[in-house]
Protein backbone atom coordinates (compact mmCIF):
# COMPACT_ATOMS: atom_id res chain seq x y z
CA UNK A 1 0.00 0.00 0.00
CA UNK A 2 2.77 2.41 0.97
CA UNK A 3 4.27 2.19 -2.51
CA UNK A 4 0.97 3.00 -4.24
CA UNK A 5 0.36 5.98 -1.95
CA UNK A 6 3.81 7.32 -2.63
CA UNK A 7 3.35 6.84 -6.36
CA UNK A 8 -0.02 8.63 -6.34
CA UNK A 9 1.48 11.52 -4.35
CA UNK A 10 4.27 11.81 -6.86
CA UNK A 11 1.75 11.74 -9.68
CA UNK A 12 -0.24 14.56 -8.05
CA UNK A 13 2.88 16.69 -7.64
CA UNK A 14 3.73 16.19 -11.33
CA UNK A 15 0.21 17.22 -12.31
CA UNK A 16 0.50 20.46 -10.31
CA UNK A 17 3.85 21.15 -11.98
CA UNK A 18 2.61 20.55 -15.51
CA UNK A 19 -0.66 22.45 -14.98
CA UNK A 20 1.38 25.41 -13.77
CA UNK A 21 3.49 25.28 -16.92
CA UNK A 22 0.28 24.90 -18.94
CA UNK A 23 -0.81 28.33 -17.68
CA UNK A 24 2.27 29.93 -19.22
CA UNK A 25 2.88 27.79 -22.29
CA UNK A 26 -0.57 26.41 -23.05
CA UNK A 27 -2.78 29.38 -22.25
CA UNK A 28 -0.52 32.35 -22.81
CA UNK A 29 1.67 30.81 -25.52
CA UNK A 30 5.04 31.63 -23.94
CA UNK A 31 7.20 28.51 -24.35
CA UNK A 32 9.25 28.02 -21.19
CA UNK A 33 12.13 25.53 -21.21
CA UNK A 34 13.26 26.22 -17.66
CA UNK A 35 10.15 25.72 -15.60
CA UNK A 36 11.77 23.27 -13.20
CA UNK A 37 14.01 26.10 -11.94
CA UNK A 38 10.92 27.53 -10.21
CA UNK A 39 9.98 24.13 -8.85
CA UNK A 40 13.52 24.10 -7.50
CA UNK A 41 13.21 27.57 -5.93
CA UNK A 42 10.03 26.47 -4.18
CA UNK A 43 11.61 23.23 -3.02
CA UNK A 44 14.78 24.82 -1.65
CA UNK A 45 12.94 27.69 0.05
CA UNK A 46 10.35 25.48 1.70
CA UNK A 47 12.81 22.85 2.87
CA UNK A 48 15.31 25.33 4.30
CA UNK A 49 12.48 27.10 6.14
CA UNK A 50 11.01 23.93 7.65
CA UNK A 51 14.49 22.86 8.68
CA UNK A 52 14.63 26.15 10.60
CA UNK A 53 11.42 25.15 12.43
CA UNK A 54 9.00 27.22 10.37
CA UNK A 55 5.50 25.68 10.19
CA UNK A 56 5.02 23.59 7.03
CA UNK A 57 2.25 25.67 5.47
CA UNK A 58 4.07 28.95 6.04
CA UNK A 59 7.16 27.48 4.38
CA UNK A 60 5.08 26.23 1.46
CA UNK A 61 3.61 29.70 1.02
CA UNK A 62 7.02 31.34 1.23
CA UNK A 63 8.30 28.98 -1.46
CA UNK A 64 5.39 29.96 -3.70
CA UNK A 65 6.02 33.65 -3.12
CA UNK A 66 9.73 33.46 -3.86
CA UNK A 67 9.22 31.32 -6.97
CA UNK A 68 6.52 33.73 -8.11
CA UNK A 69 8.74 36.77 -7.66
CA UNK A 70 11.53 35.16 -9.66
CA UNK A 71 8.87 34.24 -12.19
CA UNK A 72 7.88 37.89 -12.55
CA UNK A 73 11.53 38.69 -13.31
CA UNK A 74 11.56 36.11 -16.11
CA UNK A 75 8.20 37.51 -17.17
CA UNK A 76 9.86 40.91 -17.51
CA UNK A 77 12.43 39.25 -19.76
CA UNK A 78 9.57 37.85 -21.85
CA UNK A 79 8.46 41.41 -22.54
CA UNK A 80 11.83 42.03 -24.11
CA UNK A 81 12.54 38.81 -26.05
CA UNK A 82 10.08 36.65 -27.95
CA UNK A 83 9.45 33.22 -29.48
CA UNK A 84 12.58 31.14 -29.90
CA UNK A 85 14.66 33.78 -28.16
CA UNK A 86 12.42 33.48 -25.11
CA UNK A 87 12.57 29.67 -25.19
CA UNK A 88 16.37 29.75 -25.09
CA UNK A 89 16.40 32.47 -22.41
CA UNK A 90 14.20 30.35 -20.12
CA UNK A 91 16.46 27.40 -20.83
CA UNK A 92 19.30 29.64 -19.69
CA UNK A 93 17.40 30.40 -16.48
CA UNK A 94 17.41 26.68 -15.69
CA UNK A 95 21.17 26.36 -16.22
CA UNK A 96 21.90 29.52 -14.22
CA UNK A 97 19.73 28.26 -11.34
CA UNK A 98 21.65 24.97 -11.31
CA UNK A 99 25.00 26.71 -11.67
CA UNK A 100 24.29 28.97 -8.69
CA UNK A 101 22.82 26.27 -6.43
CA UNK A 102 25.70 23.88 -7.07
CA UNK A 103 28.25 26.41 -5.82
CA UNK A 104 26.42 27.60 -2.66
CA UNK A 105 27.56 25.98 0.56
CA UNK A 106 24.48 27.11 2.52
CA UNK A 107 22.22 25.39 -0.03
CA UNK A 108 24.15 22.16 0.38
CA UNK A 109 26.10 22.50 -2.89
CA UNK A 110 26.25 19.28 -4.88
CA UNK A 111 24.97 17.25 -1.92
CA UNK A 112 21.71 19.15 -1.60
CA UNK A 113 19.41 19.41 1.40
CA UNK A 114 18.74 16.20 3.32
CA UNK A 115 16.65 15.14 6.32
CA UNK A 116 13.88 17.61 5.56
CA UNK A 117 11.38 17.35 8.46
CA UNK A 118 8.16 15.39 8.02
CA UNK A 119 5.16 17.74 7.72
CA UNK A 120 3.37 15.49 10.25
CA UNK A 121 0.29 14.69 8.19
CA UNK A 122 0.93 10.99 7.76
CA UNK A 123 1.29 9.40 4.33
CA UNK A 124 -2.43 9.42 3.59
CA UNK A 125 -2.88 12.92 4.94
CA UNK A 126 -0.10 14.19 2.69
CA UNK A 127 -1.64 12.43 -0.30
CA UNK A 128 -4.96 14.09 0.53
CA UNK A 129 -3.23 17.47 0.72
CA UNK A 130 -1.56 16.92 -2.67
CA UNK A 131 -4.77 15.75 -4.32
CA UNK A 132 -6.60 18.73 -2.80
CA UNK A 133 -4.01 21.02 -4.36
CA UNK A 134 -4.39 19.23 -7.72
CA UNK A 135 -8.15 19.85 -7.67
CA UNK A 136 -7.69 23.48 -6.68
CA UNK A 137 -5.12 24.09 -9.41
CA UNK A 138 -7.29 22.37 -12.02
CA UNK A 139 -10.32 24.43 -10.97
CA UNK A 140 -8.22 27.59 -11.06
CA UNK A 141 -7.09 26.72 -14.60
CA UNK A 142 -10.68 26.11 -15.70
CA UNK A 143 -11.78 29.36 -14.11
CA UNK A 144 -8.99 31.29 -15.81
CA UNK A 145 -9.83 29.80 -19.18
CA UNK A 146 -13.45 30.91 -18.88
CA UNK A 147 -12.63 34.37 -17.61
CA UNK A 148 -11.76 37.54 -19.45
CA UNK A 149 -8.11 36.86 -18.62
CA UNK A 150 -8.36 33.51 -20.40
CA UNK A 151 -9.57 35.21 -23.57
CA UNK A 152 -6.73 37.69 -23.40
CA UNK A 153 -4.29 34.77 -23.03
CA UNK A 154 -5.73 33.17 -26.17
CA UNK A 155 -5.31 36.46 -28.00
CA UNK A 156 -1.72 36.86 -26.81
CA UNK A 157 -0.77 33.31 -27.76
CA UNK A 158 -2.44 33.72 -31.14
CA UNK A 159 -0.92 37.00 -32.22
CA UNK A 160 0.67 39.34 -29.73
CA UNK A 161 0.82 42.38 -31.96
CA UNK A 162 -2.83 42.17 -32.96
CA UNK A 163 -3.79 41.77 -29.31
CA UNK A 164 -1.86 44.91 -28.48
CA UNK A 165 -3.52 46.74 -31.34
CA UNK A 166 -6.93 45.79 -29.94
CA UNK A 167 -5.96 47.73 -26.85
CA UNK A 168 -5.21 44.76 -24.61
CA UNK A 169 -2.53 45.28 -22.00
CA UNK A 170 -0.36 42.41 -23.25
CA UNK A 171 2.57 43.07 -20.91
CA UNK A 172 0.38 42.98 -17.82
CA UNK A 173 -1.28 39.69 -18.73
CA UNK A 174 2.03 38.06 -19.64
CA UNK A 175 3.39 39.03 -16.23
CA UNK A 176 0.28 37.63 -14.54
CA UNK A 177 0.68 34.35 -16.43
CA UNK A 178 4.30 34.07 -15.36
CA UNK A 179 3.59 35.06 -11.75
CA UNK A 180 0.75 32.54 -11.38
CA UNK A 181 2.47 29.73 -13.23
CA UNK A 182 5.76 30.02 -11.41
CA UNK A 183 4.12 30.43 -7.99
CA UNK A 184 2.23 27.18 -8.57
CA UNK A 185 5.50 25.58 -9.70
CA UNK A 186 6.90 26.71 -6.35
CA UNK A 187 3.97 24.96 -4.64
CA UNK A 188 4.72 21.71 -6.43
CA UNK A 189 8.38 22.13 -5.46
CA UNK A 190 7.57 22.59 -1.78
CA UNK A 191 5.32 19.53 -1.85
CA UNK A 192 7.99 17.52 -3.69
CA UNK A 193 10.68 18.44 -1.16
CA UNK A 194 8.50 17.28 1.74
CA UNK A 195 7.45 14.15 -0.09
CA UNK A 196 10.91 12.76 -0.86
CA UNK A 197 12.49 14.75 2.04
CA UNK A 198 15.81 14.97 0.22
CA UNK A 199 16.64 17.31 -2.66
CA UNK A 200 19.83 17.96 -4.61
CA UNK A 201 20.64 20.02 -7.72
CA UNK A 202 20.14 17.14 -10.16
CA UNK A 203 16.48 16.84 -9.11
CA UNK A 204 16.01 20.12 -10.98
CA UNK A 205 18.19 19.46 -14.02
CA UNK A 206 17.26 20.65 -17.49
CA UNK A 207 15.88 17.24 -18.48
CA UNK A 208 13.20 17.66 -15.79
CA UNK A 209 12.09 20.90 -17.46
CA UNK A 210 11.77 18.94 -20.68
CA UNK A 211 9.74 16.31 -18.87
CA UNK A 212 7.32 18.98 -17.67
CA UNK A 213 7.07 20.54 -21.11
CA UNK A 214 6.60 17.08 -22.60
CA UNK A 215 3.67 16.47 -20.26
CA UNK A 216 2.05 19.70 -21.45
CA UNK A 217 2.74 19.13 -25.13
CA UNK A 218 1.88 15.42 -25.18
CA UNK A 219 -1.34 16.19 -23.34
CA UNK A 220 -2.17 18.84 -25.90
CA UNK A 221 -0.90 22.37 -25.35
CA UNK A 222 -3.62 24.26 -23.44
CA UNK A 223 -5.95 21.33 -22.83
CA UNK A 224 -6.46 20.91 -19.06
CA UNK A 225 -7.74 17.34 -19.11
CA UNK A 226 -5.17 16.29 -21.69
CA UNK A 227 -2.34 17.69 -19.59
CA UNK A 228 -3.62 15.92 -16.46
CA UNK A 229 -3.84 12.57 -18.28
CA UNK A 230 -0.43 13.00 -19.89
CA UNK A 231 1.31 13.94 -16.65
CA UNK A 232 -0.34 11.07 -14.79
CA UNK A 233 0.89 8.67 -17.47
CA UNK A 234 4.37 10.13 -17.93
CA UNK A 235 5.09 10.37 -14.19
CA UNK A 236 4.40 6.68 -13.54
CA UNK A 237 5.70 5.42 -16.87
CA UNK A 238 9.33 5.24 -15.70
CA UNK A 239 8.14 3.09 -12.77
CA UNK A 240 6.29 0.71 -15.08
CA UNK A 241 9.33 0.61 -17.32
CA UNK A 242 11.50 -0.70 -14.49
CA UNK A 243 11.38 -4.16 -16.05
CA UNK A 244 13.11 -2.95 -19.17
CA UNK A 245 15.61 -1.12 -16.95
CA UNK A 246 18.39 -0.15 -19.31
CA UNK A 247 16.14 0.87 -22.17
CA UNK A 248 14.01 3.26 -20.08
CA UNK A 249 15.35 6.57 -21.39
CA UNK A 250 15.56 5.23 -24.92
CA UNK A 251 11.87 4.44 -24.86
CA UNK A 252 11.06 7.76 -23.21
CA UNK A 253 12.94 9.79 -25.81
CA UNK A 254 11.44 7.81 -28.67
CA UNK A 255 7.97 8.29 -27.21
CA UNK A 256 8.41 12.07 -27.12
CA UNK A 257 9.61 12.00 -30.68
CA UNK A 258 6.90 9.67 -31.98
CA UNK A 259 4.04 11.62 -30.40
CA UNK A 260 5.32 14.91 -31.82
CA UNK A 261 6.04 13.40 -35.21
CA UNK A 262 2.71 11.65 -35.68
CA UNK A 263 0.29 13.58 -33.47
CA UNK A 264 1.57 17.12 -32.96
CA UNK A 265 -1.67 18.07 -31.17
CA UNK A 266 -0.86 15.60 -28.42
CA UNK A 267 -3.45 13.37 -26.76
CA UNK A 268 -6.10 16.08 -27.07
CA UNK A 269 -5.47 16.30 -30.80
CA UNK A 270 -5.54 12.53 -31.09
CA UNK A 271 -8.88 12.30 -29.28
CA UNK A 272 -10.23 15.00 -31.53
CA UNK A 273 -9.31 12.96 -34.59
CA UNK A 274 -10.71 9.68 -33.27
CA UNK A 275 -13.97 11.03 -31.79
CA UNK A 276 -14.68 14.10 -33.87
CA UNK A 277 -18.13 14.89 -32.50
CA UNK A 278 -18.34 13.13 -29.16
CA UNK A 279 -18.38 14.51 -25.65
CA UNK A 280 -14.71 13.68 -25.30
CA UNK A 281 -14.03 16.16 -28.04
CA UNK A 282 -15.67 18.95 -26.09
CA UNK A 283 -13.97 17.93 -22.90
CA UNK A 284 -10.58 17.91 -24.54
CA UNK A 285 -11.19 20.80 -26.86
CA UNK A 286 -8.14 22.97 -27.17
CA UNK A 287 -8.60 26.57 -26.29
CA UNK A 288 -7.58 27.88 -29.67
Amino acid at each position, binding site marked *: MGYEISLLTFMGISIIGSLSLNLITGFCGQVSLGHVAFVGIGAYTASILTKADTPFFVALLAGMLLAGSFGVMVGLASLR*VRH*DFLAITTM*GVNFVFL*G*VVRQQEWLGGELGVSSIPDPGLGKLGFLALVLGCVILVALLSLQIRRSWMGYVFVAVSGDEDTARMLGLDVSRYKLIAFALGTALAGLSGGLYAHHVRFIFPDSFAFVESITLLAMVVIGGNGSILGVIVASALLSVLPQWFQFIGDYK*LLLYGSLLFVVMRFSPGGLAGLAKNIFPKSKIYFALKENQ
Partner: protein
Amino acid sequence: MLYLELFLQGLLQGSIYALIAVGLTLVYGLLRILHVAHAGLYTLGGYFGVLVFNSTGSLMLSGIVAMFGVGILGVIIYRLCYEAILDQPPYVPLIASIGLFIAMEELYRILFGSYGISYTNPPLQQMLPLGGMYLREGEWVTILVSIILIGSLAWLSIRTRLGLAWRATVTDPQMAESFGIDPIRVRYFNFFIGSALAGTAGMIVGILNNLVEPTMGSVPSYKALAIIVLGGLGSVRGTLVAALMLGVVESFGTIYLGNVLNRDAIAFVFLILVLMVRPQGMFRGV
Protein backbone atom coordinates in the same frame (compact mmCIF):
# COMPACT_ATOMS: atom_id res chain seq x y z
CA MET B 1 51.29 35.64 -20.34
CA LEU B 2 48.45 34.04 -18.42
CA TYR B 3 46.01 36.31 -20.20
CA LEU B 4 47.36 35.36 -23.59
CA GLU B 5 47.18 31.69 -22.74
CA LEU B 6 43.60 31.99 -21.46
CA PHE B 7 42.70 33.93 -24.57
CA LEU B 8 44.19 31.26 -26.83
CA GLN B 9 42.45 28.44 -24.96
CA GLY B 10 39.21 30.39 -25.28
CA LEU B 11 39.66 30.79 -29.03
CA LEU B 12 40.37 27.08 -29.34
CA GLN B 13 37.21 26.13 -27.44
CA GLY B 14 35.37 28.81 -29.40
CA SER B 15 36.37 27.35 -32.76
CA ILE B 16 34.97 23.97 -31.71
CA TYR B 17 31.75 25.69 -30.64
CA ALA B 18 31.72 27.44 -34.00
CA LEU B 19 31.91 24.17 -35.95
CA ILE B 20 28.92 22.79 -34.02
CA ALA B 21 26.86 25.97 -33.99
CA VAL B 22 27.22 26.85 -37.68
CA GLY B 23 25.25 23.74 -38.66
CA LEU B 24 22.58 24.62 -36.16
CA THR B 25 22.28 28.17 -37.44
CA LEU B 26 22.07 26.96 -41.06
CA VAL B 27 19.15 24.73 -40.13
CA TYR B 28 17.47 27.54 -38.22
CA GLY B 29 17.99 30.06 -40.99
CA LEU B 30 16.32 27.80 -43.54
CA LEU B 31 13.61 26.02 -41.58
CA ARG B 32 13.20 27.85 -38.23
CA ILE B 33 13.82 24.61 -36.32
CA LEU B 34 15.86 24.51 -33.10
CA HIS B 35 17.64 21.27 -34.00
CA VAL B 36 18.78 19.88 -30.63
CA ALA B 37 19.50 16.43 -32.08
CA HIS B 38 22.37 18.11 -33.94
CA ALA B 39 24.54 17.37 -30.90
CA GLY B 40 23.66 13.69 -31.25
CA LEU B 41 25.27 13.82 -34.70
CA TYR B 42 28.29 15.51 -33.17
CA THR B 43 28.68 12.60 -30.74
CA LEU B 44 28.28 10.18 -33.64
CA GLY B 45 31.13 11.94 -35.43
CA GLY B 46 33.29 11.22 -32.39
CA TYR B 47 32.35 7.54 -32.50
CA PHE B 48 32.93 7.20 -36.24
CA GLY B 49 36.34 8.80 -35.79
CA VAL B 50 37.51 6.59 -32.95
CA LEU B 51 36.06 3.35 -34.33
CA VAL B 52 37.48 3.76 -37.83
CA PHE B 53 40.86 4.95 -36.56
CA ASN B 54 41.19 2.07 -34.10
CA SER B 55 40.43 -0.49 -36.79
CA THR B 56 42.35 1.00 -39.75
CA GLY B 57 44.88 3.39 -38.23
CA SER B 58 44.27 5.99 -40.94
CA LEU B 59 43.40 9.43 -39.68
CA MET B 60 42.41 10.56 -43.18
CA LEU B 61 39.92 7.73 -43.63
CA SER B 62 38.33 8.23 -40.20
CA GLY B 63 38.00 11.94 -40.92
CA ILE B 64 36.23 11.22 -44.20
CA VAL B 65 33.90 8.67 -42.60
CA ALA B 66 33.08 11.05 -39.72
CA MET B 67 32.34 13.88 -42.10
CA PHE B 68 30.38 12.14 -44.85
CA GLY B 69 28.74 9.46 -42.72
CA VAL B 70 27.37 12.01 -40.29
CA GLY B 71 26.42 14.36 -43.12
CA ILE B 72 24.32 11.69 -44.82
CA LEU B 73 22.71 10.74 -41.51
CA GLY B 74 21.79 14.39 -41.01
CA VAL B 75 19.91 14.35 -44.31
CA ILE B 76 18.13 11.14 -43.28
CA ILE B 77 17.08 12.73 -39.98
CA TYR B 78 15.63 15.70 -41.83
CA ARG B 79 13.79 13.43 -44.27
CA LEU B 80 12.31 11.09 -41.64
CA CYS B 81 11.80 13.44 -38.72
CA TYR B 82 11.37 17.06 -39.65
CA GLU B 83 9.87 17.12 -43.12
CA ALA B 84 6.37 16.16 -41.95
CA ILE B 85 6.16 18.63 -39.07
CA LEU B 86 7.53 21.79 -40.68
CA ASP B 87 4.16 23.54 -40.66
CA GLN B 88 3.52 22.91 -36.95
CA PRO B 89 4.12 25.53 -34.21
CA PRO B 90 7.85 25.78 -33.38
CA TYR B 91 7.66 23.88 -30.10
CA VAL B 92 6.59 20.69 -31.93
CA PRO B 93 9.84 20.15 -33.85
CA LEU B 94 11.73 21.36 -30.76
CA ILE B 95 10.24 18.68 -28.49
CA ALA B 96 10.55 16.06 -31.23
CA SER B 97 14.20 17.01 -31.58
CA ILE B 98 14.85 16.80 -27.83
CA GLY B 99 13.17 13.38 -27.75
CA LEU B 100 15.32 12.25 -30.64
CA PHE B 101 18.44 13.53 -28.89
CA ILE B 102 17.64 11.64 -25.65
CA ALA B 103 16.98 8.48 -27.66
CA MET B 104 20.25 8.90 -29.61
CA GLU B 105 22.33 9.31 -26.46
CA GLU B 106 20.77 6.19 -24.98
CA LEU B 107 21.32 4.26 -28.17
CA TYR B 108 25.04 5.13 -28.14
CA ARG B 109 25.24 4.06 -24.50
CA ILE B 110 23.64 0.71 -25.27
CA LEU B 111 25.65 0.12 -28.46
CA PHE B 112 29.09 1.36 -27.38
CA GLY B 113 28.98 1.14 -23.56
CA SER B 114 28.62 3.91 -21.00
CA TYR B 115 32.32 4.33 -20.18
CA GLY B 116 33.33 5.66 -23.56
CA ILE B 117 35.99 4.60 -26.05
CA SER B 118 39.58 5.88 -26.23
CA TYR B 119 42.04 5.87 -29.10
CA THR B 120 44.31 2.83 -28.73
CA ASN B 121 47.14 4.79 -30.30
CA PRO B 122 46.27 8.47 -29.76
CA PRO B 123 47.16 10.59 -32.81
CA LEU B 124 48.35 14.21 -32.85
CA GLN B 125 49.64 14.38 -29.28
CA GLN B 126 53.07 15.99 -29.92
CA MET B 127 53.73 19.41 -28.43
CA LEU B 128 54.73 22.18 -30.82
CA PRO B 129 56.03 25.56 -29.63
CA LEU B 130 54.32 28.89 -30.27
CA GLY B 131 56.10 31.92 -28.85
CA GLY B 132 56.78 30.88 -25.27
CA MET B 133 53.86 28.44 -25.10
CA TYR B 134 53.30 24.91 -26.22
CA LEU B 135 50.23 23.70 -28.06
CA ARG B 136 49.47 20.10 -28.93
CA GLU B 137 49.40 19.06 -32.58
CA GLY B 138 45.71 18.29 -32.11
CA GLU B 139 45.07 21.86 -31.06
CA TRP B 140 46.87 23.20 -34.12
CA VAL B 141 44.79 20.88 -36.28
CA THR B 142 41.61 22.09 -34.58
CA ILE B 143 42.37 25.69 -35.44
CA LEU B 144 43.45 24.83 -39.00
CA VAL B 145 40.45 22.59 -39.69
CA SER B 146 37.98 25.18 -38.42
CA ILE B 147 39.53 27.90 -40.57
CA ILE B 148 39.60 25.67 -43.67
CA LEU B 149 36.05 24.35 -43.24
CA ILE B 150 34.44 27.66 -42.46
CA GLY B 151 36.48 29.34 -45.19
CA SER B 152 35.28 26.83 -47.77
CA LEU B 153 31.73 27.22 -46.50
CA ALA B 154 32.01 30.96 -47.14
CA TRP B 155 33.49 30.29 -50.59
CA LEU B 156 30.70 27.82 -51.37
CA SER B 157 27.93 30.18 -50.43
CA ILE B 158 29.39 33.24 -52.15
CA ARG B 159 31.11 31.87 -55.27
CA THR B 160 29.05 28.91 -56.48
CA ARG B 161 25.63 28.54 -58.09
CA LEU B 162 24.64 26.10 -55.38
CA GLY B 163 25.48 28.68 -52.73
CA LEU B 164 23.51 31.29 -54.62
CA ALA B 165 20.44 29.02 -54.72
CA TRP B 166 20.90 28.36 -51.03
CA ARG B 167 21.07 32.02 -50.05
CA ALA B 168 18.11 32.81 -52.27
CA THR B 169 16.02 30.14 -50.55
CA VAL B 170 16.95 31.44 -47.10
CA THR B 171 15.98 34.99 -48.08
CA ASP B 172 12.69 34.19 -49.81
CA PRO B 173 11.73 30.51 -50.30
CA GLN B 174 8.74 31.21 -52.56
CA MET B 175 10.55 33.58 -54.85
CA ALA B 176 13.48 31.19 -55.09
CA GLU B 177 11.15 28.35 -56.00
CA SER B 178 9.50 30.35 -58.74
CA PHE B 179 12.97 30.96 -60.21
CA GLY B 180 13.38 27.21 -60.60
CA ILE B 181 15.34 26.37 -57.46
CA ASP B 182 14.35 23.03 -55.94
CA PRO B 183 13.75 23.84 -52.23
CA ILE B 184 13.94 20.16 -51.20
CA ARG B 185 17.43 19.80 -52.64
CA VAL B 186 18.54 22.97 -50.90
CA ARG B 187 17.30 21.58 -47.59
CA TYR B 188 19.14 18.27 -48.10
CA PHE B 189 22.27 20.17 -48.94
CA ASN B 190 21.81 22.35 -45.88
CA PHE B 191 21.46 19.41 -43.52
CA PHE B 192 24.37 17.61 -45.16
CA ILE B 193 26.77 20.53 -44.70
CA GLY B 194 25.64 21.34 -41.16
CA SER B 195 25.82 17.74 -39.98
CA ALA B 196 29.18 17.13 -41.65
CA LEU B 197 30.62 20.11 -39.73
CA ALA B 198 29.20 18.74 -36.47
CA GLY B 199 30.61 15.28 -37.21
CA THR B 200 34.06 16.78 -37.79
CA ALA B 201 33.82 18.74 -34.55
CA GLY B 202 32.90 15.53 -32.71
CA MET B 203 35.90 13.71 -34.10
CA ILE B 204 38.24 16.58 -33.19
CA VAL B 205 36.97 16.72 -29.61
CA GLY B 206 37.31 12.94 -29.41
CA ILE B 207 40.98 13.25 -30.35
CA LEU B 208 41.66 16.22 -28.03
CA ASN B 209 40.11 14.51 -24.99
CA ASN B 210 41.16 11.04 -26.19
CA LEU B 211 37.71 9.88 -25.08
CA VAL B 212 34.37 9.52 -26.83
CA GLU B 213 31.43 8.98 -24.49
CA PRO B 214 27.68 8.81 -25.04
CA THR B 215 26.98 12.02 -23.13
CA MET B 216 29.67 14.18 -24.77
CA GLY B 217 26.94 15.99 -26.71
CA SER B 218 24.71 17.06 -23.83
CA VAL B 219 26.53 20.22 -22.83
CA PRO B 220 27.40 21.36 -26.40
CA SER B 221 23.82 20.80 -27.53
CA TYR B 222 22.37 23.45 -25.27
CA LYS B 223 25.39 25.71 -25.39
CA ALA B 224 25.22 25.74 -29.18
CA LEU B 225 21.61 26.90 -28.90
CA ALA B 226 22.79 29.75 -26.67
CA ILE B 227 25.44 30.61 -29.25
CA ILE B 228 23.09 30.80 -32.22
CA VAL B 229 20.67 32.94 -30.21
CA LEU B 230 23.53 35.25 -29.21
CA GLY B 231 24.54 35.47 -32.85
CA GLY B 232 21.02 36.54 -33.85
CA LEU B 233 19.43 33.20 -34.91
CA GLY B 234 20.21 32.40 -38.51
CA SER B 235 23.13 34.75 -39.01
CA VAL B 236 26.25 32.69 -39.80
CA ARG B 237 28.58 35.62 -39.24
CA GLY B 238 26.93 36.36 -35.89
CA THR B 239 27.23 32.72 -34.87
CA LEU B 240 30.96 32.65 -35.59
CA VAL B 241 31.58 35.80 -33.58
CA ALA B 242 29.37 34.58 -30.73
CA ALA B 243 31.09 31.17 -30.62
CA LEU B 244 34.60 32.65 -30.39
CA MET B 245 33.45 35.26 -27.88
CA LEU B 246 31.78 32.67 -25.67
CA GLY B 247 34.91 30.51 -25.73
CA VAL B 248 36.98 33.46 -24.49
CA VAL B 249 34.40 34.62 -21.92
CA GLU B 250 34.21 31.08 -20.52
CA SER B 251 37.94 30.62 -20.27
CA PHE B 252 38.31 33.88 -18.32
CA GLY B 253 35.08 33.29 -16.40
CA THR B 254 36.16 29.92 -15.01
CA ILE B 255 39.23 31.59 -13.50
CA TYR B 256 37.56 34.69 -12.09
CA LEU B 257 33.97 33.58 -11.36
CA GLY B 258 34.66 29.91 -10.67
CA ASN B 259 33.52 29.97 -7.05
CA VAL B 260 30.19 31.68 -7.78
CA LEU B 261 29.10 29.98 -10.98
CA ASN B 262 30.18 26.86 -12.80
CA ARG B 263 31.45 26.93 -16.36
CA ASP B 264 28.16 26.02 -18.04
CA ALA B 265 26.18 28.67 -16.19
CA ILE B 266 28.58 31.41 -17.33
CA ALA B 267 27.50 30.88 -20.94
CA PHE B 268 23.86 31.43 -20.04
CA VAL B 269 24.45 34.43 -17.76
CA PHE B 270 26.32 35.97 -20.69
CA LEU B 271 23.43 35.04 -22.99
CA ILE B 272 20.76 36.56 -20.74
CA LEU B 273 22.78 39.75 -20.22
CA VAL B 274 23.31 40.23 -23.96
CA LEU B 275 19.67 39.49 -24.78
CA MET B 276 18.40 42.03 -22.26
CA VAL B 277 20.42 44.72 -24.02
CA ARG B 278 19.92 43.45 -27.56
CA PRO B 279 16.80 41.22 -27.75
CA GLN B 280 17.51 40.33 -31.39
CA GLY B 281 21.01 38.98 -30.62
CA MET B 282 24.31 40.60 -31.47
CA PHE B 283 23.71 40.51 -35.22
CA ARG B 284 20.54 40.88 -37.20
CA GLY B 285 19.48 37.37 -38.24
CA VAL B 286 16.85 36.23 -40.73
